């Protein structure tokens, strides 16, 4: 078992956003996390990634407890996340952002001072080959991100996460807001990341065709808890899931 989340719970004021949620992911597995809006999917990712501190539960990752670690420490453990809504970061180029991704697992403290007289040519070449080329971002590496389309910014966000050489990627709606064509390409990239790097993926997504064609297993969440888990066809056949999620009577 690579990731084992047990009984995760967090509330905001009176709202229990995630309520006793459990989920596990094997190495190299792509797990889909679906559920209606407000089910707590983003909050779940925030808890695993260290952005929120859950009030109860454990987040075991390869034998290490992630709960209570700061986000930058979680990334150092090889767990990287992307954002549901990508921010527009002014004055930074695509390459700048990808370098920051790589730096998330790089040198720290006073050692960072050495960056002042260290060249970056080797790093740039490596990032071009391992991240920018595979994601089709090589040609626009020098462009400021705020000039890019929403779809490209999502690709940059994924590139940034990949540059930290993760073993688990937490993707929050990677396809939402993309055109059909862009969405298919994004899904292909995600499968390729898994195939090439044996990276495990947890993917929150609404677009069912993408989820069906990409995920090995699907977990359905409603009102902060897991209501079903199984393969794509099993999820689609389950009457409870159809009622809660697909809006059938």
């Amino acid at each position: 078992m690579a990731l084992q989340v047990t009984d995760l719970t967090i509330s905001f004021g009176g709202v229990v956003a995630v309520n006793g949620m459990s989920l596990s992911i094997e190495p190299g597995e792509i797990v889909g996390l679906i559920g209606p809006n407000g089910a707590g999917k983003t909050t779940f990712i925030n808890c695993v990634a260290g952005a929120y501190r859950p009030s109860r539960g454990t987040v075991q990752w390869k034998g290490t407890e992630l709960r209570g670690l700061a986000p930058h420490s979680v990334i150092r453990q090889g767990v990287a996340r992307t954002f549901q809504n990508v921010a527009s970061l002014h004055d930074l180029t695509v390459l700048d952002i990808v370098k920051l991704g790589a730096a998330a697992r790089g040198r720290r403290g006073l050692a960072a001072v050495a960056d002042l007289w260290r060249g970056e040519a080797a790093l740039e070449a490596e990032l071009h080959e391992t991240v920018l080329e595979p994601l089709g971002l090589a040609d626009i590496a020098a462009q400021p991100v705020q000039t890019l389309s929403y779809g490209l910014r999502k690709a940059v966000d994924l590139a940034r996460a990949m540059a930290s050489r993760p073993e688990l990627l937490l993707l929050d709606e990677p396809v939402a807001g993309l055109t059909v064509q862009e969405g298919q390409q994004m899904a292909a990239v995600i499968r390729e990341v898994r195939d090439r790097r044996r990276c495990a993926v947890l993917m929150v997504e609404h677009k069912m065709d993408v989820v069906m064609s990409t995920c090995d297993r699907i977990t359905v969440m409603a009102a902060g808890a897991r209501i079903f888990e199984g393969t794509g066809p099993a999820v689609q056949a389950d009457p409870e899931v159809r009622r809660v999620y697909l809006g059938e009577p």
Partner: protein
Amino acid sequence: MPARRRLALLAVVVLAAAGSFALGRFGAYLVHSVAIAAIAAMGLNLLTGFAGQISFASGALIGIGAYTAGNLGNAGWGLGAILAAGVAAAVASVVIGLPALRLRGLYYAIATLAAQFVLEYLFKIVEPLTKGISGMNIAPLVLLGRPVASDQAWAAISIAILALTWLGLARLMRTNVGRAFLVVRENELVAKGMGIDVVRVKLWAFLASGFVIGVSGALVGFTTRLASPEGFGLSLSIDQVAMLIVGGQGVWAGSLLGAGFVVLIPEAIQRLGEALHVANLLSAMREMSFGLLIVLFLLFEPRGLAALLRRLARGVSRIALPHPVPDSSPVVAARTPAPGGTREKAL
């Protein structure tokens, strides 16, 4: 930076520094006043314009630089006194910045204001180090065995240090710590999600900014030859903020433009007032007109003179050339290949 550009820049700096010796005393005084103010403005720009942390304590940090350099310079430290002034102000800047790790926005701004007042008070009472209200006399800096006393020499030295500061800060912005400044400025939550240690990054911003402001303070001390509490009050902090806003945040050239504006305009007003025999009236209007200017720039050109000049230059080049020169402005860069097209190729 390409070698040729580096060489051209070096030539400009050497020429400007050498040219200082051809200036009269007053001209040289204006040059070093602007250069020294611009160094501090760059330090504040790093903190506020690039890393997004406002501060009203730069007046006091300039003071710490001046007092440190004064004490050590009087003790015969030479150039080392300038570096030590940077270190002392850097440490103070980090201490002032500690509340920024917990407080946001207005609350943090008020904490820096409080720090400004506390330091001003300390300047008055820690007499062994500051000579209290009467102020501390500072002997001329001794360089290569000779005291540097002329305004011309100080203009040349200030230009050289300004150029070094500019290069160093621009280099810092091309490291991961520098890039992280920009992300922290834009959105702290995103920065955290990207794996940036926001606390550490902010501390670096305070440290580097404080160092630069302290160096400027050392130069203030050595050129005015006097450090006294009222010289490093809130109005100096406000002047610095005015330079930042009028010049342009997040652009290094903006700090130089802002410093030129804030230092030279009052001089010009002073001259005008003397010529028209209304000096008192005009100097009373100084503070008010700066306040008004800050508000006007915030309303109409938040990116300051630097952005204004760039637009002007683009307009001129459009008139002068049939096809505008290509630049990397967002307008041009926005013409990116269709998102689908680019990614398709690679898959």
